[in-house]
């Protein structure tokens, strides 16, 4: 049957199971938006800035495990997507971006709203396409979805010339065969290295599992838990590995790295074996590489061969899907007592508890207190927390004990401020039965503030908690600790959030003292619609522990002991 390029876009999306698209119309994508009217099965969310369409598509994909779709016009519309695509690229999030392009005859002529979008997005996409001929469009769309979701997932951009959107061609999506001779992700680990890895694991006295985003992306939650329990091996997660195993699991040492738990970092530095599962030894995780886990043998499992030996040389490198690899490993793993190792870890944990900010009662309102109160009230299996980037993000990772599978969505690799609110919008479509909490700072909140209108227009019942300290808190912390207390452009004003909420027709509330927090949260939860909460928190508080740049992972700056500070 004949279909126009514009119709093919929607027909293909429907066949890929897409029911929501985040976008913004404009000149070069108008035929597609015209055709949208004939496809009511797809719900289009009109964002207020294209960057947020990309973030929302990423949030949807992170929450659902399916491909998120965003859409924009040529030129400025497409270039605005770049930050969201870069975020999806670094965090391996499956996103398909569809952009309009000037008519094929004008490509390369500096036409109105023309930008070389495939050129601009080349380094921030897994792959991209410029479609100048309608006959190629169905094939390209099918390949785009396949590439985005398979192997190591990532963003794929399809740039469609305006004349292609008008032109018609034969369309039979199901008959299309994906032909990608150079793209064959490997899922099974080679038997030889699997056996080698199992031998190292069974021999290890002080092993640590490093669980990353790959566990979540491949759906290997159960395999990870069984693997750890069967071998009796402690787990530490990366920031994006939070949600791969409940924070309450006794083997979970919780987050590692720059602001990781001190005992997790000590365990990694003292380990004789690191079992890295779907993580990439990012610099925020390793600290100074030359002093990282010096006595450890390294087993590295990743679906992307280019990650093996990139930052840390692996003694055993296994290329494969971590779920499949764990299934291959499981029959070979034997239980070991490792009592000394667990006693050592318990001692580190005991020492760290004395430094906990929550034990330091000084009647000030701290972000961790708010987070703990949210946690106390919500249903742990039915809440999704989305953060922005900065101090509140690290505190959420430390203090919100995520139990739900993949319950924390955050911008890890790119660390993109402004991510929180649009990603929460995306997540709210992916998980309509979840309570969605957006934890944001006053900096990132103001980057994505226009999306409050989107939230109201779409009536997304998102609970937005602004942790307002009047500073770009993480930058301020670095200036305090690393730049000798010289504060440069970190003090930030914020409009009256109650008035902002009122202006958008949203429920707004404020808490300034610890005793007000529980009531604000309870009231926000009982309100069926979106709520904007203004938590006026302590201004100059630091996230601890902290591994300063260039320092070894165990050389953490620690919070002073409780009895000293009280």
């Amino acid at each position, binding site marked *: 049957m004949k279909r126009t390029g514009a119709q093919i876009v929607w027909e293909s999306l429907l066949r890929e199971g897409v029911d929501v698209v985040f976008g913004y119309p404009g000149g070069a994508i108008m035929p597609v938006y015209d055709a949208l009217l004939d496809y009511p099965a797809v719900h289009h969310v009109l964002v207020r800035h294209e960057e947020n369409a990309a973030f929302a598509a990423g949030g949807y994909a992170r929450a659902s495990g399916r491909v998120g779709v965003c859409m924009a016009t040529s030129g400025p519309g497409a270039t605005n997507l770049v930050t969201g695509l870069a975020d999806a690229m670094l965090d391996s999030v499956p996103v398909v971006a569809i952009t309009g392009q000037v008519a094929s005859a004008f490509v390369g002529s500096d036409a109105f709203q023309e930008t070389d979008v*495939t*050129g601009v997005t*080349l*380094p921030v996409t*897994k*792959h991209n396409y*410029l479609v100048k001929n309608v006959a190629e469009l169905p094939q390209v769309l*099918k*390949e785009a*979805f*396949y*590439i985005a979701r*398979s*192997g190591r997932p990532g963003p794929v951009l399809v740039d469609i010339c305006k004349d292609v959107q008008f032109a018609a061609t034969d369309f039979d999506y199901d008959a*299309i*065969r*994906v*032909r*990608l*001779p*150079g*793209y*064959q*992700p*490997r*899922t099974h680990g*080679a038997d030889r*290295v699997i056996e080698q890895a199992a031998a190292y694991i069974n021999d290890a006295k002080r092993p640590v599992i490093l669980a990353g985003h790959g566990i979540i992306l491949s759906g290997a939650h159960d395999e990870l838990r069984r693997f750890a329990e069967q071998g009796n091996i402690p787990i530490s997660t990366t920031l994006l590995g939070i949600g791969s195993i409940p924070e309450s699991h006794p083997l979970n040492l919780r987050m590692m790295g720059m602001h990781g738990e001190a005992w997790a970092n000590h365990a990694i530095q003292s380990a004789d074996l*690191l079992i890295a599962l779907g993580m990439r030894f990012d610099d925020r995780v390793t600290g100074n*590489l*030359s002093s*990282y*886990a*010096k006595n*450890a*043998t*390294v087993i590295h499992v990743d679906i*992307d*061969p*280019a990650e*093996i*030996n*990139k*930052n*840390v*040389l692996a*003694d055993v*490198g296994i*290329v494969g899907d971590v779920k499949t690899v764990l299934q291959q490993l499981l029959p070979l793993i034997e239980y070991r007592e490792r009592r000394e190792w667990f006693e050592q870890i318990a001692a580190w944990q005991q020492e760290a508890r004395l430094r906990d900010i929550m034990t330091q009662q000084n009647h000030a309102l701290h972000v961790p207190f708010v987070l703990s109160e949210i946690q106390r009230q919500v249903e742990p299996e039915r809440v999704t927390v989305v953060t922005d980037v900065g101090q509140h993000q690290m505190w959420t990772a430390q203090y919100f004990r995520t139990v739900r599978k993949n319950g924390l969505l955050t911008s890890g690799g790119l660390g993109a401020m402004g991510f929180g609110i649009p990603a929460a919008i995306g997540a709210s479509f992916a998980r309509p039965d979840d309570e969605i909490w957006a934890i944001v700072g006053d900096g990132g909140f103001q980057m994505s503030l226009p999306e409050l209108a989107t939230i109201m227009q779409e009536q997304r019942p998102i609970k937005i908690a602004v942790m307002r300290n009047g500073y770009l808190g993480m930058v301020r912390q670095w200036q305090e600790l690393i730049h000798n207390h010289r504060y440069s452009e970190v003090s930030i004003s914020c409009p009256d959030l109650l008035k902002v909420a009122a202006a958008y027709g949203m429920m707004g509330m404020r808490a300034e003292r610890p005793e007000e927090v529980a009531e604000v949260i309870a009231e926000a939860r009982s309100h069926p619609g979106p709520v904007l909460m203004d938590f006026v928190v302590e201004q100059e508080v630091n996230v601890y522990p902290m591994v300063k740049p260039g320092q070894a992972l165990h050389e953490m700056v620690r919070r002073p002991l409780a009895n000293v500070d009280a």
Partner: protein
Amino acid sequence: MTLVDYTKADAQKSTHVLVALVENKPGVLTRVASLFRRRGFNIESLTVGHTDNPAISRMTIVVDTSKTNAALVANNLFKLVNVIDVQDVTREPIVSRDLALIKVRTNSQTLFEVNQLVDIYRAKVVDICPESVIIEVTGPESKIESIVGMLKPYGILEMVRTGLVAMVRGSGYFSGLPPAEDNGNGNHSGNGSGTAIYEA
């Protein structure tokens, strides 16, 4: 764990030769060049040309391994969707050839000597005029460098080299034929020969 120290890893030999089969599509060279730029890979030379299959082009890439790990380059190249396969042929028995056109200043006294050099190196004079000749020479890079050294005293006016092309000796072949078709709903089950590069 061991620190990744690429400067020491390949200190013995300073270059590696990679052969990549790529889809013959617009923009593929840009993707490869962009990858090298953003990862900071140091490349000695890169050549691209047709193969017997019009859908496939072949690249020969010489990596400066005193600065860049060749396996990292190969694995990153292989990640590109349009790159069908990559082989590191450095340790294989290979035929490698570079071609140079060298314009050398000559006069009636030196022409005879230059001609003798051309004979010794089995090169060819492909253009001649009273003040200069153009010499075409083919061979491994060392041979080209050697003749260039010998011609320098006469005055090299202009030179162009194609960069290295390479092929493994013997009856084995590297043609990158596409794997069986796939419906796009599952994972491919191709030969995947290129993915084995990293494994120790």
